């Protein structure tokens, strides 16, 4: 089965937007983490994850997203999400992500609020 996750990065002055496409499982979560940690090492302190083309997540993938959030919080930065499907939004709330990362309905609102 080919459920490989793809991540595209739009680098901005003070951060970046990461566009995910595909299933966020353990492998997909690690792919996002690798890109996020590269950006953090390059002093990006605001990362917006646009999940518009991700329709399925699992609890292992989300656990990796929580690790990314924790690492960014340690650096004094911020992770945010936008364009979630209703079921992914509900899943994020149950998993506790919503308490540590802001979730925006669309990218425009996120970019404006985060000054990306």
């Amino acid at each position, binding site marked *: *089965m080919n*459920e490989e996750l793809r991540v595209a990065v739009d680098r901005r002055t003070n951060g970046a937007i990461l566009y995910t496409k595909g*299933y966020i*499982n353990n*492998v997909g979560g690690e792919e996002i983490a690798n890109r996020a940690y590269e950006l953090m090492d390059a002093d990006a302190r605001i990362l917006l994850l646009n999940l518009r083309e991700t*329709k*399925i*997540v*699992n*609890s*292992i993938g*989300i*656990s990796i997203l*929580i*690790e990314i*959030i924790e690492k960014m919080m340690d650096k004094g930065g911020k992770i945010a999400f936008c364009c979630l*499907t*209703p*079921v992914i939004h*509900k*899943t994020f*709330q*149950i*998993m*506790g*992500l*919503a*308490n*540590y990362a802001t979730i925006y309905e669309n990218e425009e609102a996120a970019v404006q609020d985060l000054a990306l």
Partner: protein
Amino acid sequence: MTMAAERQMELTLPMVDDIEIAAARAAGNLARELGMSSEKIDEMTHAIIEACINAREHSGCADNRIYLRFVGTSIGEGPRIDVWISDHGRGFDPAEARSRRPAPGMAHKRGRGLQLIEAHMDEVDITTQQGGGTTIHMVKYEKKS
């Protein structure tokens, strides 16, 4: 008397990476045929994914198989999908698993699978015994009365 439209499907899947997607897609296709809304299907497929992952990661079964059965009916207030996911593994104590569950909304890296299943489905019933495998029976309604 109104006849119920019914679809049934049985699958035996190997416990390999991403096999949960095959299970979720099969159930989603069946639900779609019966006219279930995409939001309800998404919730059901996420629950199936978590149940398959739990079986793969925690059952410790020797045959490395997940057994699935889907029954969809459509009558009266819309589709209803019954899902059974079984393994022949070591079984577990659901009460003990629930007692380890972090509070809702608290960030926690693991141990949320059963909680997600219960949140996304309308009914969940677990049959399990030590050394005797586990079956999780879940129901999703288009409209829950």
